[in-house]
């Protein structure tokens, strides 16, 4: 029995990576994401001014437009927009990634159980998922941010937002995971594993879940963008932590002076646009790469 020996990997990830590599917009998105991650990690150590620093005021540069010394200009308060934008990248990406990580874990767990177990468990879980799905997350964040403003001012503002996003934002993934689990649990390889002694948890988490990771990864990637945008909105509206650098906060600060100090709004705004664009493009690319229905 002769078989052509595969020289390249054949796992679902290897196959998906090769498909992804051919997708130009996905690669562009990936490049943008990598750029922002790099900036978020390295930036804060490299920029001239620490977060929320009014130093430029004392240097006499407050309110100046973009220049060689201040590439993105300076706010009226003395905050250097470039340093601030870079510092904010760190915080915004943290919110996006942390919230996504937690919501993905919760969503997969709840969704898998909802799709696998029958009867009361499944019905209850479905009800819970649906309930969380219809809740307007943004309004709740604004509400909680006010209610827990004490925490916000203690510097836990970001963590608060992450927690609220995580608590309310997992239902989308749960829905998808539930549907996929439903479909997969009747497949013969699950029956085969059961016939060889596997119990429910093993079947669910070792056999079924690895087969549903594709849509989960795509949604998670798009969620990162979504969560970052939510944070921007929250901070822009003034419900965020005034002591933590975020793009939303910058937009908030620059809002009143858009005509005169336009640089305070433009550059953070562009940062948000490109960051979200990057994750969206990458998410679309991943969707194409992981979607088994597309032919090579």
């Amino acid at each position: 029995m002769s078989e052509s020996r595969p020289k390249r990997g054949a796992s679902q990830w290897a196959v998906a990576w090769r498909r992804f590599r051919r997708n130009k917009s996905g690669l562009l998105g990936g490049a943008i994401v990598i750029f922002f991650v790099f900036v978020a990690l390295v930036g804060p150590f490299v920029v001239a001014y620490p977060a929320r620093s009014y130093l430029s005021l004392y240097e006499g540069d407050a309110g100046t437009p973009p220049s060689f010394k201040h590439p993105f200009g300076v706010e009226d308060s003395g905050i250097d927009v470039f340093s601030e934008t870079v510092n904010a990248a760190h915080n915004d990406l943290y919110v996006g990634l942390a919230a996504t990580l937690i919501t993905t874990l919760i969503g997969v767990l709840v969704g898998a159980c909802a799709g696998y177990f029958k009867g009361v468990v499944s019905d209850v879980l479905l009800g819970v998922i649906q309930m969380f799905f219809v809740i307007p997350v943004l309004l709740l964040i604004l509400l909680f941010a006010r209610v827990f403003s004490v925490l916000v001012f203690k510097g836990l503002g970001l963590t608060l937002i992450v927690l609220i996003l995580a608590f309310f934002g997992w239902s989308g993934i749960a829905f998808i995971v539930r549907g996929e689990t439903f479909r997969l649990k009747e497949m013969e390889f699950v029956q085969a594993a059961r016939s060889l002694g596997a119990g429910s948890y093993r079947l669910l988490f070792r056999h079924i879940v690895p087969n549903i990771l594709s849509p989960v990864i795509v949604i998670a990637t798009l969620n990162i963008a979504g969560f970052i945008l939510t944070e921007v909105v929250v901070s822009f509206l003034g419900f965020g932590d005034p002591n933590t650098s975020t793009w939303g906060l910058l937009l908030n600060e620059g809002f009143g002076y858009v005509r005169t100090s336009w640089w305070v709004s433009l550059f953070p705004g562009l940062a948000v646009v490109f960051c979200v664009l990057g994750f969206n493009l990458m998410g679309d690319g991943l969707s194409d790469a992981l979607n088994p229905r597309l032919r090579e």
Partner: protein
Amino acid sequence: MPEKLLEVSNLRTYFFTEAGVVKALDGMSLEVNKGQAVGLVGESGSGKSVTAQSVLRIVPRPGRIVHGSIKFEGEDLLSKSDDDMRKLRGPKMAIVFQDPTTSLNPVFTVEKQLTDILMLHRDLTKEAASKRALSLLEHVGIQEPEKRLKAYPHELSGGMKQRIAIARALSCEPVLLFADEPTTNLDVTIQAQVLELLKQLQKELNMTMVMITHDMGIIADMTERVTVLYAGKVMEVADTPTLFHSPKHPYTEALLKAVPSVKQTRALEVIPGNIPNLIEPPSGCVFNPRCKYAKDICTKQEPPLEKVEEGHYVACHFWRELTLEGRAG
């Protein structure tokens, strides 16, 4: 004195669907002695696969065993908890499924297909399990097994996949193996190889095997004793040579006539009609609508399983009167 390994009595497995209650098995009995190769033959929908699922107690919802008894190694399986059954599945009994493309997990490498089960039931380290997986692959006749370990199912041919499925089923050395149409989805040339492999493994491991098939040719080749199943009921049970030479049930005769042979010159005789609706099976003998010998009583009274001679049983009102055509050789 042959030891009874599996004793299924009057098993009824029903599927409670929205369209009605499907009586997949309706009073089915089966006896398998240790070391025997037994055949379970019948058309699609006769309940063959459901039998294996019932013994392992993995009948999918909305199916349920509603009646009867299943004894394995003298123990009553129906009274066991699911935890206890899980300890039996793999180490004591296993199924090889029909389609290896769907019965293997698509995201597991060949190695993982085997080590997953090995590490579940045996206290092995990953390295020990990998070694055992390698030797299992050799055992089922896979060339250059080291190269295959990291391959994924979609990279392999049907025959290769089925060998791996067999290796997986045998990984914990079960005493009872159900082979559910293991070659139906394979090319004819590969079929012969896989059947040869199963025969060889059965002898080597002194395994008890239940060969589930609709192919009388496979029955003749692989089994010593055979049960003929139709619409969830037993039609005839006999030693394989006896069944072929002197069948006593019209359905068996029809099945034998439907197998083509190189020497024959007459047209292939098909069994008219289709398998009955299992929600509302025919009254009387369940085969009567398609039976060419059917008389009035056949539509009214269900024939009991009667003894023809030692080891040969048949469920037909007229087995004494009918002279049925068997096959020579």
